[in-house]
């Protein structure tokens, strides 16, 4: 029997539902996560069928099932509710807190940067912060400079924070369940432009290990490490180059902090060539970090320079043609790949 196929966003909804079903201490807190919780005409026997469940609808249905005590609409006050989520996590709950767009972190960074990420360390190992921060990144939907950034690398530079970026529905469900099970602060960053992507997702409860990359496609000539949606760009490039007789290995990083050095180094040692694709701006991002570690630890295995393909050093533009030019795509990666594999191509 064929596996069930569901969308990336449905996989995330299902994982939150399963986690809340399994453990009463799991709560959902954020702006409109219930959606209209106090609106009289939406309350019918506490079912809330028409409560909209977040701007992307990812938590639709959960307030009806688990009640307003566990699916908590907050004012638009990102600092206030993130801070409350950290306080709740330190004292016995396991919150999932939603930052509607990662761009809004400017108002909400302190609870993550200075409180949640550091309490355990500062308090001599006595605190546990089982908090999952769900957020949304990425360009491609015409949302412009304040709703389209890719900031997971910024979170990833904070010690005490783990950052997960799923590229497909299967991983989204398994990584979300793993994140909620962890006694640590996890930022779970979703690319909104792949919410509709469908894939095989088992109905049962399962987890995908945090901190472990996956080799999506094996190959021997060139490694492409990619993050989130960029994994699909890597696969497109791989398909194109296979026709020219060049064999590409695609590594899906899945966790960007702490990222899986072992899998990446093993792959580069095999292929001798590396491209890293990251939709973040080009400096101080995950791609540059991967490149620097590989240059340090696998220099002798390299047959060419390490290349990164990132967004340019600009804000995300609005106009469709400019936004398209901003986002890394297969053509940009192919151009860069040419420099590395020109001698491998079959005539």
């Amino acid at each position: 029997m064929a596996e069930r196929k569901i969308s990336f966003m449905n996989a995330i909804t299902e994982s939150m539902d399963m986690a809340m079903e399994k453990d009463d201490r799991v709560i959902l807190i954020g702006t409109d996560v219930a959606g209209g919780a106090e609106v009289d005409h939406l309350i019918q026997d506490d079912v809330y069928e028409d409560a909209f469940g977040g701007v992307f609808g990812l938590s639709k249905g959960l307030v009806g099932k688990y009640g307003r005590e566990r699916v908590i609409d907050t004012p638009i006050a990102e600092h206030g509710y993130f801070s409350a989520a950290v306080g709740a996590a330190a004292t016995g709950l396991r919150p999932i807190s939603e930052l509607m767009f990662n761009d809004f972190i400017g108002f909400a960074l302190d609870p993550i940067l200075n409180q949640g990420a550091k309490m355990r360390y500062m308090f001599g190992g006595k605190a546990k912060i089982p908090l999952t921060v769900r957020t949304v990144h990425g360009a491609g939907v015409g949302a412009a400079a304040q709703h389209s950034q890719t900031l997971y690398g910024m979170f990833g530079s904070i010690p005490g924070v783990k950052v997960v970026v799923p590229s497909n529905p299967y991983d989204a469900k398994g990584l979300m369940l793993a994140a909620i099970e962890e006694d640590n602060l996890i930022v779970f960053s979703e690319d909104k432009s792949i919410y509709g992507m469908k894939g095989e997702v088992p109905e049962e409860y399962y987890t995908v290990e945090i901190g472990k990359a996956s080799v999506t496609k094996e190959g021997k000539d060139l490694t492409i490490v990619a993050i989130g949606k960029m994994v699909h760009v890597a696969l497109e490039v791989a398909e194109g180059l296979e026709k020219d007789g060049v064999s590409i290995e695609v590594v899906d990083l899945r966790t960007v902090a702490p990222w899986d050095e072992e899998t990446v180094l093993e792959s580069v040692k095999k292929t001798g060539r590396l491209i890293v694709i990251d939709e973040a701006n080009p400096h101080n991002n995950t791609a540059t970090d991967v490149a620097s570690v590989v240059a340090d630890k696998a220099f002798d295995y390299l047959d060419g320079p390490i290349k990164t393909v990132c967004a340019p050093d600009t804000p995300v533009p609005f106009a469709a043609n400019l936004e398209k030019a901003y986002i890394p795509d297969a053509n940009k990666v192919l151009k860069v790949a040419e420099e590395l594999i020109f001698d491998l191509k079959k005539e």
Partner: protein
Amino acid sequence: MEKKTALWIYQKMNEIRFFEEQVRRIFGKGLIPGFVHLYAGEEAVATGVMAQLEDSDYITSTHRGHGHAIAKGCDINGMMAEIMGKKDGLGGGKGGSMHVADIDKGMLGANGIVGGGFGLAAGAALSIKTLGNDNVAVCFFGDGASNEGTFHEGLNLASILDLPVIFVCENNQFGEGTPFRYASASETVAERASAYNMPGVRVDGMDVEAVYKATEEAIERAKAGKGPTLIECDTYRQYGHFEGDEQKYKSEDDPNRDRDPIIEFRGKAVENGWITKEEADSIESAAEKTIEDAVAFAEVSPLPDESSLYKDVFA
């Protein structure tokens, strides 16, 4: 006030004062890394509030947190060792003065970020409410923090969710060196409570009994599901914002400048027959000894193992 409460309060007030005097002394000798913010002068607030709390209640504290930690029952030896950056410190020497904490005692940490505690306390209260426990969370904050945006977000959120939390402002008249009367558009912090539909009371923060009574009412309200209360305690810090602060911004006519809450409480407690003079004397000498012992304990405690640098980043 019951005798045992008065005895406890007087003991904790003295422990805090002697603790801070010793911290000041050994900081002057260069035995404490970084910087310290002393609580001396504000003892009536921590003890008046904490006399109403149990171990299972939560507090969030501030950069001026030693007094809160002592009154909440944190181990004093562990605190002194922590402040000196020693292995036997409450945080293994990795937090220091601004991060003294003991979650098992409900002490969610001193906090190096001004205004960092409003939401944390609301979150602890959310845990209490969601898990169905009969407790409260108390957020201590200074007049300086009352002008952070986090004040607004935390109080509003706590109020709309009817959380069992008490916001206790220690208005010591200065945010670092800036006078409250300059920095705040409102004359008091307490009056802002009306914007959040919660009671706002202003009490004499040099008077333990006033703080104690206001806290009792706030707890009653919180536990009855009626939500938060804002209590502003008018107080004064005896020393500077940090040790070494020249305090040139202070002036002769600062309110509370010439008052000492410990002396006032002793007088009142003896007068009301809560404590005898002999009991008060013996509490003072016992507290002095407790703190001297803590210094001795911390001085011989080893430095943290270097390997601990890498520990406890994650669970």
